């Protein structure tokens, strides 16, 4: 009896092992495609939809998407790809970093997978950001546009009549600052309610600040990709940063608040304006604390003809060290202009980078207003960030300078210090 029981148990164990091994072998018969991307905290759901759609149409591929927070992604990519790790096949590339990743040897060209006609299907700003030294290096997954949301309830409470009928009404920064001061004075004179004027979703980052100077006719960096003296510390830049610094000095916006803390404050009804993007619309629609409105990106008074707005977003590139480069190229094409692109735009609610998609939105009378306004901004005022292999250095140093101005530093001094630092850091490229 004992022997029978023992034998039965052993047989069961063998069967289980055999079954598990068979399943494991069956799984390992699939090719694993590893993707690393940003979007920690908000892209989990749309990326899961992408995974599902891709694996449904590619049953022999096991798609694995790793999602990281914005800052963490850059560090992980640096650590892994600097060590030439083959852990990832596809990497998300922030559009201003295409040149940098190409120079560092992290990504390989996509020219064999995307014909010139296919490349031309992307909007101009996104295509320009995809190309470095005449090679198409990373395909745009989407683009972006800034929108200025505003709290109608706070305006009503302050007795301010501001309700532009034209959805493409161009506000000015001066107008927004003035309304902010009036709302604060009326609705929260002693500051006890914590109400303030303008909330910045990407406070002190080049994405937010560059358009201020670009609107005044200034660039971020010279055409050679490295000249900053006489480009970054011009009178126009001082004017733009003086305006920015005054917003915080006059308590129109707040110091000591991180980028990710601003959105919740606006959604809680604490801010009059919020500079965000179409991705905010679902959080706004879900709240019932206040009535909201939308505006396209503001300009400066007298500079309506040179209005610049933030644009550009995430691209996808093939890791130079990945084992499945052909499969990676096919995935990138699927994700940027195939079925995956439709799934992505539908699930993420981000702005497409394809001309055809943008035209559809412009011509569709039933398209959501938030997308019409975003596409309008991207097509008419979108000003791409500088193309330079030194963008990491540029972003780090200028972000610190913009944050210093936010905290009260003299704009000219901050810009001159930034120029000095960048000139030192750029030496290694010469």
């Amino acid at each position, binding site marked *: 009896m004992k022997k029978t029981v023992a034998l039965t148990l052993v047989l069961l164990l063998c069967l289980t092992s055999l079954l598990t091994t068979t399943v494991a072998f069956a799984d390992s018969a699939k090719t694993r495609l590893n993707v690393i991307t940003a979007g920690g905290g908000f892209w989990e759901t749309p990326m899961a939809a992408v995974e599902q759609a891709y694996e449904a149409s590619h049953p022999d591929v096991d798609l694995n998407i790793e999602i990281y927070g914005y800052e963490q992604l850059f560090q992980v990519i640096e650590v892994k790809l600097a060590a030439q790790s083959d852990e990832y096949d596809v990497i998300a590339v922030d559009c201003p970093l295409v040149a*940098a990743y190409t120079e*560092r040897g992290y990504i390989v060209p996509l020219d064999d997978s995307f014909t010139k006609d296919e490349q031309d299907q992307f909007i101009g700003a996104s295509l320009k950001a995809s190309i470095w030294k005449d090679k198409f290096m990373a395909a745009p997954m989407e683009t972006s546009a800034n929108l200025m949301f505003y709290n109608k309830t706070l305006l009503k409470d302050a007795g301010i009549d501001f309700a532009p009928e034209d959805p493409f009404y161009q506000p000015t920064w001066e107008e927004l600052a003035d309304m902010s001061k009036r709302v604060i004075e009326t609705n929260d004179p002693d500051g006890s309610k914590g109400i303030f004027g303008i909330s910045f979703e990407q406070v002190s980052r080049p994405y937010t600040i560059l358009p201020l100077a670009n609107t005044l006719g200034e660039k971020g960096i010279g055409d050679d990709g490295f000249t900053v003296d006489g480009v970054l510390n011009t009178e126009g830049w001082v004017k733009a940063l003086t305006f920015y610094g005054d917003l915080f000095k006059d308590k129109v916006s707040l110091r000591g608040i991180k980028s990710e803390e601003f959105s919740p404050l606006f959604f809680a009804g604490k801010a009059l304006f919020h500079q965000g993007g179409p991705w905010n619309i679902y959080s706004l629609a879900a709240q019932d604390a206040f009535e909201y409105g939308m505006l396209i990106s503001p300009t400066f008074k007298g500079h309506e003809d040179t209005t610049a707005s933030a644009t550009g977003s995430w691209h996808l590139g093939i890791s130079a060290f990945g084992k499945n480069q052909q499969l990676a190229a096919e995935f990138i094409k699927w994700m940027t202009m195939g079925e995956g692109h439709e799934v992505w735009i539908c699930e993420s609610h981000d702005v497409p980078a394809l001309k055809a998609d943008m035209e559809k939105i412009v011509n569709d009378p039933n398209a959501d207003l938030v997308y019409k306004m975003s596409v309008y901004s991207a097509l008419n005022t979108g000003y791409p960030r500088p193309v330079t292999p030194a963008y990491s250095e540029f972003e*780090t140093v200028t972000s610190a300078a913009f944050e210093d101005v936010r905290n009260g530093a003299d704009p000219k001094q901050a810009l001159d210090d930034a120029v000095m630092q960048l000139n*030192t850091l750029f030496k290694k490229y010469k």
Partner: protein
Amino acid sequence: MGEIFQKRKRWIPFLCIAPAFVMILLFKLGPIASTVAESFLHRGQLSVQNYLNIGEDPMFWNSLWVTFKFNLVTTPVQILLALGMALLVNEKVRGVALFRTVYYLPVTISMTIATLVWGLMLNPNNGLVNGILAAIGIPVQPFLTSNNQALWCVATIATWKGVGFWMMFLLAGLQNINAELYEAARVDGANWLRTTASITLPLLKPSMLYVTVADTTANLLMFAPMYMITKGGPMSSTNVIMYEAYKSTFLYVDRERGMAMVTVLLALIAVVVILQFWAMGDRERRGKGGVRG
């Protein structure tokens, strides 16, 4: 046979510490040696160019000054506070164990959490500290958004977090001092101050030396608050060498610059520690005389 057994027994202690030694070699000494070696490579060639480059780099000199300034103030303050707390909790009073626990509690919180919580408390808009200051009539302070206050806010966080830890080492040192010495001093009519100066402090030297060296090293390597809340600002006022080296390696992808900076920091730590050993070490053992009997 017995002789063979005795010979084998001599190897047992080395066998026991071998795993720890291998780990230290692999994860501490190995990376240090690799970093120092890499700092002397410039574009693949053996060279001191990396050091010449950082010598001409105003950001490096600023970060060196900020590191030095931070340690010059923070380390002595922490040691004095730890000593004061150790002397207090060494008294035999009812409930002293509760005080020891409370003083030690911040040590049990990770630096990450401590930094985040203090960051919230020091928020210039709605932080707890400004709330308390406002209640007692002191104007709202900018704290971490001020280039004059940010570094000392970081020093406060580091001190709040670490002083309990150093206190425990000094407390252990105090409790190792023979109680009869204090009895004898009392009989001779020595007051608290005289007892502390002539008995406590000299006999506490070994513990003080350890705490001084370890605390100095920890403060020279301070990184978490700069990474998490100040980002080296405002106006580079908290941009210590560790943070500048981090930016160099992980943001600017300039490993050579980063390696050169941490090697300079390593040399600085070595010099400071050697000076501390020389100043506070056992002079008798060094054959330079000292306290006799």
